[in-house]
């Protein structure tokens, strides 16, 4: 039995696959690929597949993780080649390796969020200025849905803004968010708060589409989860 941690990308059309659907999609891919994946034992055996960190619907990523075990005579490289030949082009495995860290070691995730200007009436500089004003607030309280109803959290305290740039008609933020099995904060909490804040405080600034990408999954010491 060979434990494998696969790193895969989820882009373009594939970014609209929900987490639940991704599990099913991958299980079927293993069967199509003829990769002998290990099945759980017990009354209702099913293919053993673990995704240590869910990715929000609509987010792109080149650093997603999936753990499985090969139960038979096949190298993990062969498994990767076979899986890629049956997976959609927007959902491809980039690397396979033996797992090193435990799932519980995951502590942070890095994201890039690009917020487009609605049209030429809003400049990237104006959008950036609005952002700076928004982010200068002492605290940014948002409602967060939890298993036990909703809770108020200060998303400013949780999100580290590591970079702010303007691109052509867009604002690009780099964010480091708490992530893992116990705490998980979506960068959308911060950007949604910003979008909700705009009409009252900077009504001239109009935004368009938001593109978000997960750049890395990190452990407590800042090293990539591998």
């Amino acid at each position, binding site marked *: 039995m060979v434990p494998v941690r696969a790193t895969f990308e989820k882009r373009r059309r594939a970014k609209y696959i929900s987490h639940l659907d991704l599990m099913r999609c991958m299980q079927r891919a293993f*069967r*199509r690929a003829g990769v002998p994946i290990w*099945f759980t034992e017990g009354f209702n055996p099913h293919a053993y597949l673990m995704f240590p960190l869910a990715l929000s619907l609509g987010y792109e990523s080149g650093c997603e993780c999936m753990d499985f075990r090969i139960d038979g005579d096949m190298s993990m490289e062969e498994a990767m080649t076979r899986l890629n030949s049956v997976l959609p082009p927007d959902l491809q495995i980039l690397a396979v390796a033996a797992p090193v860290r435990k799932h519980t070691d995951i502590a942070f995730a890095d994201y890039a969020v690009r917020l487009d200007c609605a049209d030429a009436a809003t400049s990237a500089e104006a959008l950036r200025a609005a952002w700076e004003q928004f982010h200068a607030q002492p605290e940014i309280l948002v409602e967060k849905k939890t298993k036990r109803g909703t809770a108020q959290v200060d998303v400013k305290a949780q999100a580290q803004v590591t970079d702010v740039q303007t691109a052509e008609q867009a604002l690009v933020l780099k964010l480091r968010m708490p992530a893992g099995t116990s705490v998980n904060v979506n960068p959308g909490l911060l950007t949604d708060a910003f979008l909700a804040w705009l009409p009252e405080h900077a009504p001239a600034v109009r935004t368009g589409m938001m593109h978000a990408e997960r750049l890395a999954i990190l452990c407590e010491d800042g090293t990539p989860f591998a």
Partner: protein
Amino acid sequence: MNLFEKIEPLLLRVQKPARYIGGEPGSIMKDKSQVKARFAFCFPDRYDVGMSHLGMKVLYAVINQRPEYWCERVFAPDTDFEALMREHKLPLYALESLEPVKDFDFIGFTLQYELCYTNILNMLDLAGVPVWQRDRGESIAPIVCAGGSCACNPEPIAEFVDLFFLGEGEEVDLEVMDLYVRMRDAGATRSEFLKAAAQIQGVYVPSLYDVSYNEDGTVKAVTPKDGAPATVRKRIIENFDKCPAPESFVVPFSEIVHDRAVTEVLRGCLRGCRFCQAGFLYRPFREKTPDTICDQAKKLIDNTGYEELSLCSLSTSDHSRIEEMMDGLLTFTDNEHINLSLPSLRVDNFSTGLMNRLRRVRSSGLTFAPEAGTQRMRDVINKNVTEEELMRTCKIAFNAGQTSVKLYFMMGLPTETDDDIRGIIELAQRVVDMFYEMEHRPKGKPVQISCSIATFVPKPFTPFEFHPQDTREMIAHKQKILEEAVAGHKRIRASWHFPETSILEAVLAKGDRRLCKVVYGAWKRGCIFDAWSEHFSYPGWLESFAEQGLSVEFYANRPRPYDEVFPWDHLDYYVDKAFLIRENEKAKQAQTTKHCRLQCAGCGVTKVTGHPCFDYGKAAPAPSGTATN
């Protein structure tokens, strides 16, 4: 023009966006500059319903298997996405190329139920294609076509569609596409192409037929013009065993109604239940050999990665070699952790051997369809199922550890009395009693009999096409009787629906061409997704009928004499009207007709095929004088 950039900003604002972006494993991509014709296969309902439909998968594979043609999928957007599409002027697009449907050569709709008709208009409108056929002009593309079971009486949508495919599409769809490419390349107009296409067997071009009416509103005559045939005969696949079946499916990301591999095991039905349109429309009965079925199922599982395999047919247990077929399938499904499910089982040939094979793979409850509560009523509808058979089958299921059984019934059947309705609950109670009389009954869970009671809809090409449907008041009365009958029966659950959708279904099933304006008016009043109770608006339909001076009762509740010209009489589904009349007369006497394997009932099929449907040997020869064609 790829619409990805326009679609993307809208996706995160709607429910289940994966339905609208394609890219699923198994979807077929081609280079549009390398293909000669493009076919947009439209299912006029939501993705999760349409993606469950086997016919679409079959024709998708058949068309795409030709390198010069590209077939893509299109579904009706849900109302949230439709609103955004209209607001942002995003036209209806196909899921493979993400290109507008209006740029395709063919826009083809599958007609699986009558209550999807307004969705067809809505989809054409979203595509930016004129909904009325007469408004599409003389340029040849796009050709709006339709096929599927409701094409047997397409008159209520005849003025929206350029051509209909009657019967099985595997061959005729390609013949029409071949003709189209030849004529388009020679510069033909739409009407020139349609005239030529009407000469192909199985193609019905409604604009080439004039319909006249009597003063009482019934059809006087349907008159062909421009050389169109007086009757249009459906198409069938002669060698069904050798007919190519899809080797792969598009495997959806999001959950759909039937998310599994499906293999067709037989086509047609030998039973002749008098209420069942499919049982007459899909004749003759043809089966695939166990080897073919196992090969096709295995390929499909390998190529899709599905963990569940289902067998598809009108009556799977009527396959002459079912146990051999099941053994073949179980050898690989057991090894590979595949669940095998068998819908459409009958109670009269459900054996312990079959149950034992099923037992290894399924845990959910069993469903059977006695259809009626009393033996007299079952004889009228020619269900040919006795109470003993139902009891025996339920006993087999209980012995195997099952404690819940679902039973399907109908109400509003011809000659039905209040006692027949009460008989439904009485029958269910006798199943319950039988359970408690069993010495070795399953312990732990109490027995549960669920009865689902649908309102009967008389359909064309059945012996009951002459019958009126029960009025709303009669149905309400019978539902009240049911309610009283089931009260106090703890182990029986009975469910039924409001009758309005069944009434509309009856109207559209037996309607004429004048209903096109009613369908249009209903759509204009916002009626879409009529098959969904949360969307269905009966008042909108009633207003539209009133506007055209037509009544629901004329179509649904009027007995139709044998000599009346029916709106679908110029369409030939192999089954003779004389046979349907004979069967209806037998129904009135509660006389049954044997199933086709026991004795040929002379339905008319052999006159077309030129040979008996079964090898009867010496015991039961087919009636003489049938092979005239």
